[in-house]
């Protein structure tokens, strides 16, 4: 091992440590920012030293590398800077898919260059598996991106879909097997067909999955990309890729499980069963009626309360009402009202997304509580304000076994003395299920755009002086 390679390996070693420590720090809100900075330093270090890697040769290749980094990095910098916080989930899916595609690309080059004289079956097999996973993560993430971005509205379903998908997957695996057992004598057409089918499988697997389940899927693809990168590390004999990739693969798997659990969805159901597809039972009849309230009355109700719990949902973020809600919160706090935010794990478009949106508006994270922390407090709250949330406060999840959301943990907003629901119209939620909370005796509906309603509430509280 030459001196240059030693330096490179030391740099990779430091980068791996920085990644792990950075990831560790990112799991606590107080030093999460430092975590990403450290990981960033590791990335720059690893990238810079790689320019001196002895396996890099040819002026053209160097030029292409620099050009590629400039193009890819530049576009990502620009898009990452300007993307709205509400669109964060699909951006993560997009960047993640790119990583998966890159891993598949490494695999393609390795398999093209494989030399029957030196190729080892094990390394070939790892290259094939990594390519398969990377390709699926790439095309699957792109579909997830398109769906969340609204470029592709419908879920695509056709009879025996899972069997067709399984068939495609089986053929892909067989082709992969023949590549792995080729002993390095790789046939071009087989290689091409393998990648085409792997990419097709990623698309077909993601098409039937609905928007509500997308976060779990994106998280899964994130884990898969990590794993694919890890496998490529073994192929290229590159410890930085191995460790970072496998660490992310494992962390991503855990995160996927946590998210699925938070959403009360089994991962297998997300992947292989359409939402509500099989539950044909009649929904419980809605009793009661919708009772409207005007903003000034709602404002008074909140201003003279002891405790107000705000339940924000994605609708609030769509209406860009979070800044107004924070302003309202500050005014109420100044009047001595205790205001807390209750976040359901799936508020927003993925777990934690709502926290990011509130943080953007300036809401400090220590008045934001998650489901387990706050659910017993609704009983003692004078007013629960539901803004832009629907299914996550639907008591039917506790009571009606026929409902598709039955069993999903919900925020017990219905237990507050009074409930104010700020809602644009009368439609049902994301899942299309009637919300019994809206018809409850202690619930009043404040109709209107979230931002406008919040402004009117602010005006109402202001008037009280």
């Amino acid at each position, binding site marked *: 091992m030459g001196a240059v390679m030693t330096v490179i390996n030391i740099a990779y070693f430091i980068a791996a440590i920085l990644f792990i420590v950075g*990831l560790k720090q990112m799991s606590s809100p107080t030093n*999460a920012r430092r975590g990403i900075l450290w990981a960033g330093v590791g990335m720059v270090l690893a990238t810079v030293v790689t320019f001196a890697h002895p*396996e890099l040769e040819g002026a053209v290749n160097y030029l292409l590398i620099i050009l590629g980094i400039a193009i890819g990095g530049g576009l990502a910098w620009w898009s990452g800077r300007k993307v709205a916080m509400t669109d964060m989930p699909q951006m993560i899916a997009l960047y993640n898919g790119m990583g998966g595609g890159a891993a598949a*690309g490494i695999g393609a080059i390795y398999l093209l260059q494989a030399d029957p004289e030196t190729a080892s079956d094990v390394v070939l097999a790892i290259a094939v598996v990594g390519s398969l996973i990377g390709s699926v993560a790439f095309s699957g993430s792109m579909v997830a991106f398109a769906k969340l971005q609204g470029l592709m509205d419908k879920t695509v379903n056709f009879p025996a879909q899972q069997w067709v998908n399984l068939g495609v997957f089986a053929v892909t695996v067989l082709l992969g097997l023949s590549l792995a057992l080729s002993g390095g004598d790789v046939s071009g057409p087989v290689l091409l067909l393998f990648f085409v089918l792997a990419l097709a499988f990623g698309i077909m697997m993601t098409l039937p999955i609905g928007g509500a389940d997308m976060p779990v899927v994106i998280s899964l693809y994130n884990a898969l990309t990590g794993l694919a990168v890890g496998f490529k590390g073994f192929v290229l004999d590159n410890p930085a890729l191995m460790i970072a990739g496998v660490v*992310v693969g494992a962390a991503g798997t855990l995160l996927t499980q946590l998210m699925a659990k938070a959403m009360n969805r089994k991962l297998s159901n997300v992947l292989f069963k359409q939402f509500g597809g099989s539950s044909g039972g009649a929904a419980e009849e809605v009793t009661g009626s919708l009772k409207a309230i005007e903003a000034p009355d709602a404002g008074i109700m909140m201003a003279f309360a002891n405790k107000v719990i705000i339940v924000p949902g994605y609708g609030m973020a769509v209406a860009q009402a979070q800044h107004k809600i924070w302003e309202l919160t500050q005014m109420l706090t100044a009047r001595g009202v205790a205001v807390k935010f209750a976040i359901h794990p799936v508020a927003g478009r993925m777990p934690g997304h709502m926290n990011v949106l509130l943080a953007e508006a300036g809401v400090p994270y220590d008045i934001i509580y998650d489901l387990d922390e706050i659910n017993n407090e609704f009983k003692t709250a004078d007013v629960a304000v539901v803004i832009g949330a629907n299914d996550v406060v639907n008591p039917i999840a506790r009571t009606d076994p026929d409902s598709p959301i039955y069993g999903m943990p919900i925020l017990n907003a219905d237990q507050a003395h009074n409930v104010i629901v700020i809602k644009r119209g009368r439609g049902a939620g994301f899942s299309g299920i009637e919300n019994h909370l809206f018809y409850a005796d202690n619930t009043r509906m404040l109709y209107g755009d979230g931002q406008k309603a919040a402004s009117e509430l602010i005006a109402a509280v202001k008037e009280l002086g």
Partner: protein
Amino acid sequence: MIEGFVALYIFMLAAFTGYEVISKVPVILHTPLMSGSNFIHGIVLVGTMVALGHAATPLEQLIGFVAVILAAGNAVGGYVVTERMLEMFKTSRGGK
């Protein structure tokens, strides 16, 4: 070449590390953490650089070039959005 069993040990230890490191993450950080881990597998950039670095045919160069673009997008994009999200977290006592 990292020998078979050593590679297997690395794989296992790295997997446990990844699992342990985020085992106590609060829900509020799920999105940034997913984004952050997404950034970390941007290290694939290093792999694509090496792959393109010894590409010999135009086809390999083309694949390698696309792979480098994708990987750079993963790394840079992942960093930018994670940093933007985490920048915003603060407590009511001020400070970050």
